[in-house]
Structure formats: C-alpha cells, structure tokens
C-alpha cells in the first residue's frame, strides 16, 4: 500500500516532461548559479576546430540520474521496457551506434548496437537490420551465468553486474544473437575510459576489463522520459522505445500505441523459434522509405 502511494507520487510529478519532450543531449544543465568561476575547467577540441574552455560539469552530465550500482538488480518499479525497430525506415545511417558509443564511452570496433545487411532469401530484397540486446524474457544468458552476474530485472531489462562477472564468457556463447561484448582491455579503450568517466545512465560498468557488457536499454534515462542515445541519434526515427505497461512507444517524433503499431504492421521478433522471447520487436521492411543502397565501405576495420 505504501509502495503504491509512492508510485503514485512519482507518477504525478510533471517535471520530467521537460526531458521527454526535447532531445536532451549530454548537457543537461542545472539551474544557473552565480558562482561558477570556481569550477574546474577543461579544454575541448570541437568538431569545427575551436579549442573551447568549458566547465567540467558542462561537458559531462552534471545531474546524477541514478546511483547505478545500488539498485542495479532491482529494476524500475512498474516499468516494462520495450523497443520496436521499424525496418521500413532504416537506411544504414549508423548514427544510432555512434550515439550509443558516445553515450557509453565506447570506442570502435566495439558495437553494442549493430546495423547489419540482411537478405532473407535470394529473390527477396536486401534490408538494413539494426540489432542490439533483445532483453529476452527467457534469457539464455541468465540461464547459464554461474554467479548471477547477469540477471533479469523486474522492468524486463537483462542487466550485468560487472563487479560480479568472472569473465567465463558462457553468456556470450549462449546468446544466439551475439549481442554481448567482452572487454579484453584494448589499451586505446582503457586510456579513453580513464579520461571519460561514465555518464550517469549506466546500470553497469562496461569499462571494467575482463568482464562482459552489452546494451542495457538505458533504463535510468528512459524512466525519466529521456529516450536512449540510439533513439535520439537516429535521423529517420527507426527505433521506438517505451513502456509496455503504458502501451505507448516513441521515436522522439511520433508517439504511438504499441499494440496498434505491432498488430497493424506485422510486428515480429527475430528468431521466435528459439523461444527466447525478446523484448525488441521488428516491423518488416515493406514499403520502404529509402531504397536499399549497398554500403560502399566496410566499417570498423581498425582494431
């Protein structure tokens, strides 16, 4: 009963709307305070070649959105995160995975989110296929983990406790979608991680060498109405994200009923035959917005 009241109080908070409405980038700012002179400054080289000196808190998110490790196994009460990927809209812009890498401090060639060129049979057309961790409801990875380092949360997310992971990689062998990455300690990555502390949305610490990491659906952002980086970065609105319990998903521009979207567009899950029950649905690549253009280059060639 007490819990219910608490949930209702959270529910009635209007303030989070702000974040949900606009594509908030890395710079989520606090209310301005007068005494910023004392703050630590860092120099950043911008894309257009300026050397900007900015307060450290402005570069990284200044608001701590979650105390990740404390509730990492619990899940966000009342939520059931879900994703719908509309294959009719994908044109291999690869912005989703770049956004993901940036958000989670990852350097290529590690991709938590991949865009693959697919063709189901010879006569049918090729299409682009964004693929991430499906947060399965019957997760093969969680079944095999010997120490409970990967687990299913109440909000549907398959999380990883990097402090617990012994690095046996059984979960990677068990995942039929190859969604998981192992941190072998790429020196470039280790150096980069040192200089780029984690942003606050993480449910896991993917920078820990010798452990497994993967897409975590950014639940701490999601529950506050901020769409995950991949959704925000996509120029074509391919990825819809939402709460199954609320029956509504959004790609940042459109806000749609989940059931209608799946029922009317033939939504399906990849390899349904495995019985893994993914929480990511696909809309088949029919009547596509963009004609399929083969990618002239292979990405991620550098080790």
């Amino acid at each position, binding site marked *: 009963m007490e819990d219910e009241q608490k949930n209702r109080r959270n529910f009635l908070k209007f303030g989070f709307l702000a974040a949900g409405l606009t594509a908030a980038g890395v710079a989520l700012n606090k209310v301005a305070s007068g005494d910023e002179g004392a703050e630590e400054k860092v120099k950043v080289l911008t894309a257009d070649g300026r050397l900007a000196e900015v307060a450290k808190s402005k570069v990284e998110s200044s608001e701590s959105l979650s105390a990740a490790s404390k509730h990492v196994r619990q899940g966000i009460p009342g939520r059931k995160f879900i994703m719908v990927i509309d294959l009719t809209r994908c044109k291999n812009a690869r912005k989703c995975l770049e956004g993901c890498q940036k958000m989670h401090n990852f350097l290529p060639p590690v991709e938590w989110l991949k865009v693959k060129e697919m063709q189901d049979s010879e006569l049918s057309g090729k299409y682009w296929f964004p693929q991430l961790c499906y947060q399965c409801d019957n997760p*093969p990875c969680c079944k095999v983990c010997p120490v409970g380092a990967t687990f299913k949360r109440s909000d549907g997310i398959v999380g990883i406790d990097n402090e617990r992971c012994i690095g046996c990689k059984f979960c990677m*062998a068990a995942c039929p979608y190859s969604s998981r990455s192992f941190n072998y300690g790429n020196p470039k990555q280790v150096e980069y991680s040192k200089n780029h502390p984690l942003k606050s949305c993480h449910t896991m610490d993917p920078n820990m060498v010798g452990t497994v990491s993967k897409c975590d659906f950014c639940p701490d952002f999601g529950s506050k109405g901020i769409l995950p980086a991949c959704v925000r970065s996509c120029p074509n609105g391919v990825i819809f994200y939402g709460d199954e319990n609320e029956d509504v998903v959004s790609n940042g521009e459109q806000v749609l009923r989940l059931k209608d979207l799946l029922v009317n567009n033939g939504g399906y899950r*990849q390899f349904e035959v495995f019985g893994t029950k993914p929480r990511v649905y696909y809309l088949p690549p029919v009547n596509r917005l963009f004609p399929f253009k083969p990618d002239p280059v292979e990405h991620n060639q550098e080790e």
Partner: protein
Amino acid sequence: MKNETTAVDSVLMNKYEAMHDELLRPIQKTGLAGKIWIGFLFCVFFAGVFAFYTQETKSKYETISLNNYTMWGIYISNFVFFVALSLVGALMSAVLKLTNFEWYRPLSRIAEVIAVAAIMFAGVGIIVAMGHPERLYFLLTHGRLQSPIIWDIVVIITYFVATSLFLFIPLIPGISQLSNHLKDKPKWQMWMYKKLSLSWRGTPEQWKIVKRCITILAILIIPLGISIHTVTAWLFASTLRAEWNSTNFGAYFIAGAFLLGVAAVIVGTFFFRKYYRFEKYLTDSYFDKMGKMLVFLSGVYFYFNINEYLVPAFKMDSMHSQYLLDEFTGKDAILFWLVFLFGIFVPAILPLFKSMLKPWPLTVIAILVVIAAWFKRYIIVIPGLSHPYLPIQNVPHSWTHYVPSLIECMVVAGIFAAALLFITLFSKFFPIISVWEVAEGDGVSLEKINLLSKKA
C-alpha cells in the same frame, strides 16, 4: 598335491619378488634421460606460468587473440580434451574390473594416474580462460545451481576426489613396501611413505576394507566419469548455437573420450615399458588387447560421429548448413578430414592387421589418435563460433577468424607439461604397477602377498 601347489606358489612368489624389486628401480634411481625429461618439462611448465603472468598483467587485447565472436579458444577446447582424458580412469580400471577383464590389472595404475593428472589440469585449464581468475571463489559464494558451469565444477571436484581415492587406496599396501625397501632416500620422503602407508599391517580386516572400497569406488566412478564428460558436453549443448545444439552431444563426447583414453594408456604404457624396462610385465599381449579395444572404440566413435554430422547434413537446414559446409568442403575442411582420418579411420582399420598390434606401430597410431583428439575438440569448439546466426559484419578482419596467439599456445603447452610432470614424478615416487593386484590376479593368496612387503 599339496606339495605341487606349494611349488607353483614358490615359483610365483619368486616372480613377484623379482618384479617387486624391479619396480623399485625407477624410484630408487633416476637416470640422465629421466633428469633431462623432467628438466625439460619444468622449463615448459615455467614458460607457461610466465605466459599466463604476461596474459594477466598485460592487455588481453594484445596477448590473446579472442574476440567478441570467437570468445572461447584453445583454452576451452584444451579443457574439454583434458576432461576427456580423465575418463580413462573410469574406463580402464572400473569398467574392465567390473566386467571381469582381468588384463586391466597391470595397467590400472597408469590409467588412474593419467586420470588424476588430467582432471587436475582440466581445472587449471578453465581458470586460465577466465577474465577474472581472482574471482573464482564467487562460484562458491554466489553460485547459481541453474548454471551448467556450476554442475561441471561440482562434478569435476567430485570426480577428482573419487579418482584420487581410487588411485590412493590400492596404493596403501604398496607404500608400506616402499618404506621397508627403499634405501638412501631423504628423510622427508621416508616420512611421507610412513604417513601415507596408514600403519598398514596387512591384517585380514584391512584387506577386507581395501577391497570393499575398491569395489564401491569402481562402481561409483563409472556414473561420475560419465557425468563429468556429459556435463562438459552440456556446456555446449545447453546453448542455442546450431553447431552444438545436439541431443547426441553427451554420448558423442563420451565415445570420443573412451577412444582417447585407450590411446593415452597405450602411449603411457609404451613409454613406461621402454624407459623403466618393464617389458617383462607390460608384455606385447597388452598392446594386442588394447589395439583391439582401439578398433572397437573407434567403431563406436564413428557411429556417434555419423549421428552428429550425417543427420543434420541430410536435412541441411540453414542454421546448420553454414558451418557444416565449411567443415565438409570449405575453409575448415582440411583439418576436419585429417581429424577424421587419424582420429577414427586409422585406429579403426590399421590395428586389424596383426603386425600393427605390436608396441611400436600401435603407439604411433595411438599418438596420432591423441593428436587428432586434441584437434577434434578444437573443431567442435571453434569453427562453429565464427558462424553465428546473425552475420558477422563491419568488424576488423581479425574478428572473423581465430588463430591462437603465442601466449595461448604457451599456456596450453605449460598445462600439458604440468600434467606430464605430475605423471612422471608420481612414477618416481610410487610404483607404476600395482604388484599385489597383479599377484592377486594370478591367484596368490593375501598372506603370501603380505610376506612380500615384510621381507627386507
């Protein structure tokens, strides 16, 4: 009549006394070749330790050549190989003993020591594959009963304890002999013999207990051995990957393990016979029998291979076809067919010729079988991993295939050296043939056997 039996008895007794004395020889003295061999094994072992240290202190990104697709490499395939090898204990001593194949007697200890060494270093082999070996104890503190890894750990530990007991208990009468007969040995060694002999006096009750324990263990070790390798097979079969998604896997692994076990015992017997000059006791006839066993087990293994490959190949569903075709005719074909040739066809056909059942040719065949068996595990574990259900795209070239790095090879070599070192050192401290079991097999009474150990 009574005189006759005494005469036979005394002939036998003389034989066992001589055998007993000869068995002490390798323990009493280590020749130059033995010293070089032991030194060599130590060098390889320390190189392996150094390689492991390098792997743990430097970035694994550079020291090992695994990636996000091929996440299990030769550490895991080598682990499977060692687990398979450990099954020999269950086969040679337990199965043959319970089915009254008396010729197991002089070979049982060789088989047991190979089994103990293999299961010990199988455990080590899985630790080196871990991302965080220092978190090994999490398996105890946070273990999930649902995970096949936990099952495997439990079975490995159980099997290790059971096999060690199976090695140790028949050794107790032998140890008491050692402490009476060895000369000029360091104090600690004699002290160790004294402690390990457990005040063995050869009383009828003591003999009764030893025999009962051996029978119970022989029965227990068979299901344990089968479980250990079946669960190891389940580490693969419990995933959804096409190449491992097989109900045949447990039996298929066990059939392969039995074949490997016999081959390993042939190799072990050959070298002990040659370098400890045990030709009198490990006669050609044992090779003849083991050669025939090799043929039989190759046939069984062939049968399971047919099940494993022909059935999915007949259907050629798209989940299986990608890796099957690569193995049959594609980039893994050469290794695949070589393993088939030397791992199954050679041991199935060549020992059918009488001349091949002699120690030398049979040992060559057995060595080929052992090598093929190692690569067989490699083929089971690795090529499948590079054929996931969703295509591998946009990755560095090195992520699309796997070639073990130098560090990985050194660690594996180190593990091999350690196992061989264990076996060699064991044979330098304890008799590698169980005299009383052989004597008992020939019908010598226990009282007479007791006399052997008492004679100074």
